[in-house]
């Protein structure tokens, strides 16, 4: 479709047509079906765009408000005899059951009595034959997953038959004649099942050391779900009793096999060309950013700030950040710039650092913390959410409570107002730890954290110091060079003017008075009528334009030609710091030629012979080109590599002593600039890495936002 038609439709839809245009357009519209469709599509697309825009606003806001559910990925809640994480199933053998219609209940139940409940009789029984010496995982028709570790059944030798009956839907429960009462009280059910193991006719007991684990499917995990044990009653019903909270056992894994980096960190490292699978490499990158994000306020016994302290900090910060120190304001007035945070909510959005300092991670992600709750998949998962919140105090709760059960800590986090309900509801257990050991670990954590942070800080400070020093040296050298340049230019000008004046007077046939001192602008006028010559010569020399002067008295002419030379350096782009010089034979000096477009341009005085010298650098190597007797017009020069010693020899040959000295100092500046240039390139690369990685490590940090909570007063919305 043509662009202006698209614009026209937009105008129509926006109601921006005038009456005339509009009626013409509508007339066309009523007769032209294609146009009508085009308008409709364009309108639909525009509406769709607006919807998209709204959608992204809404969903990004929602993401901030709630953290995405992470438990439902298997759609399975862990109800259990004792339950276990799915990860532990790997390595288990898979067994399929068969449910037999002709199954008849054995004479005795699992307790060795002959009482059977209605449910036992009415619900179909699924049979599984397993090898008790092997880890086995099996799934029932209703979707319950049982994990039977080797040796789970005491006294088993030879194959074991598992009998399973399940009632997971309301229909099953009614058909089975089951009820959900516990000593007369109504219960909500997450499903019911029966499991028994037999070797021949004999019922086997479960080894309390190696319990059987069960995952019962559910749509929603409800808090406070408990496991009840069924008691068969004489009337055929089952009474549910002995409720136990369902607790998931934590299985420690190798802590170094877990991923404690913020989400996306390794991917980013790989993108940047680092070996992301080498933990040494990624660690050194990650830990080097310790302390680089927002300010990390330590919560806990030693570092906690009170609201009063924080207010004072805020006032001090404002005074420091403002150019006049808010000197006309009282503390109370400065506080007025602060949004309305009170004793109860101040820590919610401010004060607390919105980042997890990599130093904290370095202090826990090591062998010391093997066999603790931190060395679990469960913690790994929580850590990711903690990263999303960026709250170190959440992390510290786990570190400071290694002896507690995971769900107990979850509940502490929950009570801090974070959305940890879903974690809490999983009822994840703990890992036993001796108090002594725990204390040692906490000490270790604090030391290691400080050590990592101070090492990272030192490295960073060194880097900054090095950069600052280089900047400083560079600006000093540049300034000195500018002084030298202007000094040399003035001298050159004076000398050239002298030569030009002498020549002009000679052409005019006049004896020239030589001034006594090097002051050219105020010497005595030798005779009336002649002072004009000096002015013209001065002007011509200053502007480097041809002098063409006719003496009004004698009619004689003085002509000194300035003609343009344009120098091109072949393959200039291959070099760095290309510098083009012109060395006039009788000036005992040199002039730097500036670049104009692709070529270096200067005007040559016909009274001099010029030599072109080009010096360049590339990767710390020198390049040199020399062309004597430059003629006006254009010149092409080709650079050749040259050893530094040879360069010095060439300089001595090309210049008189004084000019050579000046030139060398120009070259020294060039060396310095070259090194600075190389450093700048490295710096830029580092900055690019920083810019790519910092948002991954510190999602809440932005270089434009304050690095400390008080650099810039927050804006109240």
């Amino acid at each position: 479709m043509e662009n202006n038609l698209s614009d026209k439709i937009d105008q129509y839809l926006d109601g921006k047509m005038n009456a005339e245009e509009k009626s013409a357009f509508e007339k066309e519209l009523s007769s032209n079906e294609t146009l009508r469709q085009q308008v409709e599509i364009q309108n639909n697309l525009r509406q769709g765009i607006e919807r998209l825009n709204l959608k992204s606003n809404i969903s990004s806001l929602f993401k901030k408000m709630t953290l995405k559910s992470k438990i439902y990925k298997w759609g399975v809640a862990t109800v259990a005899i004792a339950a276990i994480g799915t990860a532990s199933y790997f390595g288990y053998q898979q067994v399929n059951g068969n449910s037999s219609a002709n199954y008849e209940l054995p004479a005795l139940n699992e307790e060795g009595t002959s009482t059977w409940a209605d449910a036992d009789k009415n619900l179909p029984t699924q049979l599984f034959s397993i090898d008790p010496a092997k880890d086995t995982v099996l799934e029932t028709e209703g979707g319950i997953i049982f994990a039977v570790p080797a040796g789970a059944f005491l006294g088993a030798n030879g194959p074991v038959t598992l009998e399973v009956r399940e009632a997971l839907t309301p229909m099953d429960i009614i058909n089975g004649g089951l009820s959900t009462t516990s000593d007369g009280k109504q219960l909500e059910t997450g499903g019911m099942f029966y499991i028994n193991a037999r070797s021949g006719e004999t019922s086997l007991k479960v080894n309390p050391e190696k319990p059987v684990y069960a995952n019962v499917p559910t749509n929603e995990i409800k808090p406070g779900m408990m496991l009840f044990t069924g008691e068969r009653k004489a009337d055929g019903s089952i009474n549910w009793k002995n409720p136990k909270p369902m607790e998931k056992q934590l299985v420690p894994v190798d802590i170094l096999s877990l991923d404690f980096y913020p989400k996306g960190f390794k991917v980013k490292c790989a993108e940047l060309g680092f070996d992301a699978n080498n933990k040494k490499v990624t660690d050194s990158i990650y830990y080097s950013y310790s302390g680089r994000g927002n300010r990390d306020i330590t919560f806990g016994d030693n570092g906690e700030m009170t609201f009063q302290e924080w207010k004072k900090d805020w006032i001090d910060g404002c005074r420091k950040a403002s150019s006049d120190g808010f000197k006309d304001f009282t503390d109370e007035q400065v506080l007025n710039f602060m949004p309305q945070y009170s004793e109860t909510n101040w820590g919610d959005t401010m004060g607390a650092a919105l980042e997890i300092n990599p130093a904290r991670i370095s202090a826990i992600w090591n062998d010391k913390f093997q066999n603790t709750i931190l060395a679990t998949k469960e913690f790994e998962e929580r850590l990711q959410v903690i990263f999303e919140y960026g709250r170190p105090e959440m992390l510290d709760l786990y570190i400071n409570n290694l002896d507690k059960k995971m769900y107990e800590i979850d509940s502490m986090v929950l009570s801090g107002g974070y959305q940890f309900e879903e974690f809490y509801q999983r009822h994840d257990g703990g890992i036993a730890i001796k108090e002594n050991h725990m204390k040692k670990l906490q000490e270790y954590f604090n030391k290691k954290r400080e050590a990592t942070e101070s090492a990272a800080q030192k490295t960073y400070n060194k880097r900054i110091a090095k950069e600052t020093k280089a900047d400083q040296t560079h600006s000093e050298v540049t300034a000195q060079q500018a002084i030298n340049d202007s000094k040399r230019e003035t001298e050159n000008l004076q000398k050239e003017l002298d030569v030009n004046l002498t020549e002009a007077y000679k052409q005019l046939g006049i004896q020239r008075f030589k001034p006594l001192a090097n002051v050219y602008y105020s010497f005595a006028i030798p005779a009336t009528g002649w002072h004009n010559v000096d002015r013209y010569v001065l002007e011509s020399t200053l502007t480097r334009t041809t002098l063409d002067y006719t003496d009004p008295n004698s009619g004689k002419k003085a002509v000194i030609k300035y003609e343009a030379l344009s120098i091109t350096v072949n393959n200039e782009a291959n070099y760095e710091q290309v510098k083009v010089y012109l060395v006039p034979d009788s000036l005992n000096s040199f002039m730097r030629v500036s670049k104009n477009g692709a070529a270096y341009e200067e005007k040559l005085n016909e009274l001099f012979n010029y030599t072109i010298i080009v010096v360049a650098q590339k990767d710390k190597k020198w390049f040199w080109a020399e062309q004597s007797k430059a003629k006006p017009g254009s010149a092409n020069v080709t650079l050749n590599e040259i050893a530094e010693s040879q360069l010095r020899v060439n300089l001595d040959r090309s210049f008189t002593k004084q000019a050579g000295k000046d030139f060398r100092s120009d070259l020294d500046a060039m060396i310095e600039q070259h090194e600075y240039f190389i450093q700048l390139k490295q710096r830029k690369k580092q900055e690019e890495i920083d810019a790519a990685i910092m948002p991954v490590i510190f999602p809440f940090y932005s270089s434009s936002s304050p690095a400390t909570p008080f650099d810039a007063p927050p804006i109240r919305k």
Partner: protein
Amino acid sequence: MSDEEIIQALQQGNQTSALKKLYQYYPAIRQMILQNSGNRHDAEDIYQETLIILCRKVKENNFQLTAGLKTFLFSISRLQWMNELRKRKKNSSASLDNTNEKEEETEKMNGYIREEEKFKKAEIALMKLGDKCKKLLQLFYAQNKSFKEIADELDFSNEKTAKNQKYRCMEKARENYSNL
């Protein structure tokens, strides 16, 4: 914020604060959907669509809230979910109507929902565009940015490029739309 202030904020394009406020109704709506064979995803989708409908409706000149905002959000969410359930045929007799809404009110709300349905096809066509195109079109049509601002934000060399890109993106969207 009162209902009126929320609506005013939406009308004046001050979405963030209004949406934050509107988020407070989400748990209740989620609960309703969870209790009626939906999952959390369904709840999120439904509530998002409800908010979209609200945001777009309030911009119409003759929009008036007949009942409270909460009722509006609930009705729209509930009706959408009923439609969805019917579509899934999971529970064709699904009845979530324990409310005392008036017939004509329901019809009106259903009208809102159907109106938006029309644009979902366009949305699919747009979703198939590259991120830059999507962003560009949103900046131009939804956020009324000038080509100059768009060029700055999306790193185009100049306004002209931005403008040409806009045509190209629209053309592509049109093509996607026709191929759906």
